[in-house]
């Protein structure tokens, strides 16, 4: 009894290849292959609801654009310094001049409300500040100490609206301990040289070069 059931079921469920062919079904025909993976973006069943379009919205769109345009024209929009991609171009000089014309403007801030390190300051102060003991960048205390001296000198200095920035500090932070002696010399060198913003910019390229090989080069005076 039990055998009968199984036997009948078996023959019913799977036909042999020949049987299938006799029925006119070729191999693979009954199972259409799904070749493509499901789409990355399945079709959306619902659309988002319409956005409002009224006078108030139009007004807001206009003032929004005006506001952003205003900000982009103002010194609050901080521009990149260098667009050089390693290839020197004739046009670079003009581009930079245009850029620097914008950069020359200083953001109008209530300086008293700003931390001293953000206030515009004269750079000669910095030069004096560089003469300090060798510091260890990884040592928080040492940094603090160094900053302390730096800051103190800065504060003593006049607060003229000169915005020349000290590029070298960047190098200092990026450099490792071994480079530090050189860095300091370099800093002084740069300090002497950099008299205006545009100059500062052009120095930038050289600066990076120097960073690479300043282990070999002695300090330049």
């Amino acid at each position, binding site marked *: 009894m039990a055998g009968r059931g199984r036997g009948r079921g078996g023959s019913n469920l799977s036909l042999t290849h020949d049987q299938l062919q006799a029925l006119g079904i070729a191999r693979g025909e009954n199972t259409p292959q799904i070749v493509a993976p499901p789409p990355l973006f399945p079709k959306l069943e619902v659309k988002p609801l319409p956005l409002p379009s009224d006078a108030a919205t139009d007004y807001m769109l206009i003032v929004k654009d005006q506001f952003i345009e205003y900000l982009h024209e103002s010194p609050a929009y901080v521009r990149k310094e260098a667009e050089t991609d390693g290839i020197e171009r004739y046009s670079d000089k003009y581009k930079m001049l245009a850029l620097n014309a914008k950069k020359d403007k200083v*953001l109008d801030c209530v300086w008293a409300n700003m931390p001293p390190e953000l206030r515009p300051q004269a750079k000669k102060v910095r030069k004096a500040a560089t003469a300090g003991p060798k510091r260890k960048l990884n040592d928080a205390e040492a940094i603090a100490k160094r900053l302390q001296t730096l800051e103190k000198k800065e504060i003593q200095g006049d607060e003229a609206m000169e915005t020349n920035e000290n590029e070298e*500090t960047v190098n200092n*932070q990026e450099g490792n301990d071994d480079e530090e002696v050189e860095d300091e010399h370099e800093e002084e060198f740069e300090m002497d040289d950099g008299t205006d913003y545009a100059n500062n910019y052009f120095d930038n390229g050289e600066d990076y070069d120097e960073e690479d090989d300043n282990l070999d080069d002695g300090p330049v005076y």
Partner: protein
Amino acid sequence: MSHQMGRVVSAILERHFGEIVQKVGDDLFSYGSRPISMIVRNTGLPRNQVIDSLRTLLKFDLATFEPYNDVIVDYKLLPDNVLLLIRYPRYLLQMKSKYGSEAELLVEELLQQATCTATTLLFNIATKFKDDKEKSITILGLKDMFISLVTAGYIQQAPVAELKEGSEIPTLVPVATIVPDLDSRALVQAMNNGHINDIKDNIYWRVNYDRFHLDFRDEIMIKAITRRIDENAGELMRFLLEKMYLTSAPWAPESSPLCAVELRERCRSAATDKPLLHQFVDQYLKVLEENGGGFVRRVGDAGSGQFTVRSRHAALQLVLCALEHCVTERLGSKAARIFRLIYTKKYIEEDDIQKNAMLVNKECKQLTYKLMEEHFISVQPMRKPASAGGMAKAIYLYHVKLHSVAYTGLEMCYRSLHNVLRRAAHERSAHARLVDKQRRVRTIVHGMRLRGETQRNIDDVEETLTPPELAVLQGVEKRLKQLSTAELELDRNLFIFKWYFMYPYVE
């Protein structure tokens, strides 16, 4: 502060202040509080650019600082304030529609300057419009409006720097706003002189966002009541809010009790405008309480009825409504039915969901699981005490943890906002060259017009933009407009979530 929030904040900073400020902002967002040297080291940006960026952030109140010790200053981003940058147009709209164009000009200028003395503010605007006879903007008119706005709290005094002894790092201390006494004669004199050197003014002002937000909140509540009941009830809601400001903290979860007598008086003074409200004020109070989404609750009988305004509850109802809309659009109205059902019943078994929602069993289950998958509902297993049969069966109770669902909604808002901003940036950069060309052509044409050159010459210049180019430009413009509109709408949505999260979570 979530990852998604960081992404939006980053995109907003880029849009408004460029990539460098964005980088500095990103750094501050991910590391919390840190000094310049650390920012410089981590971003690899030149120190002067980091300084420029920090100036921008501090000026617009997008970051704060505090001394780490006597010399080192730690900077901290204020991401919530960064988000407000995209609300700028709404502040102006509010001013324009509530107080007119003078108020609009004042707030516009003040938002652009971030902080400014009254003298400079008034002088600059008046000078700008000196020759504009149509608008007839005078420095005295501006002055009066300025004082009105200060009195109404839209403009407040900026914090002032205080120096602690032995430290050079200022601390910004908030000060109470005193309505200024501006010398009209001196202002007029300054206009005649063309400069303000003679006026000594060292009080700085800034826009008080919070005051605007209260307006937005009130409007949302009033509008909701108007939708639910009618304009009279909406107006009554407005009066309740008005009275509330006199006795309670403006964002109080529940206001202190307000007397029906006072409200009746207030309605009497508005009788010509809203006669029905005046006639049926007590009835309206009853209907507002019973059918007004629980925004108002009766708390006592003294003074012929005492009522509180429930800002927290209103925020909850509105967030719930926003989430329901969201479920409806994402998963369909049947899913929204299940969501609401579970919320109403607090805890409910799967079988009962099907019975109450009147859905086909299979569909109901599918939707329930979908809702769970998208974190709109959650499930809590409960062990039944072992029954007589010996088999201890667990029952599963579904419920809505509104606080965490609202968080999901907030995150979706952030995501969408970020995506809209990113997409717009992508759109702009993909067509930067063409847009730039269009701008140049416009500038040239403008110059030619001023010089009075012939139309033919002007046409020649204009034709440098080919028809296909113009078609592309039109498309870009349309898409950017759509994305901008979406940004404004998402911000409006965000406002409701922020309002809800303003109140600490209670079970």
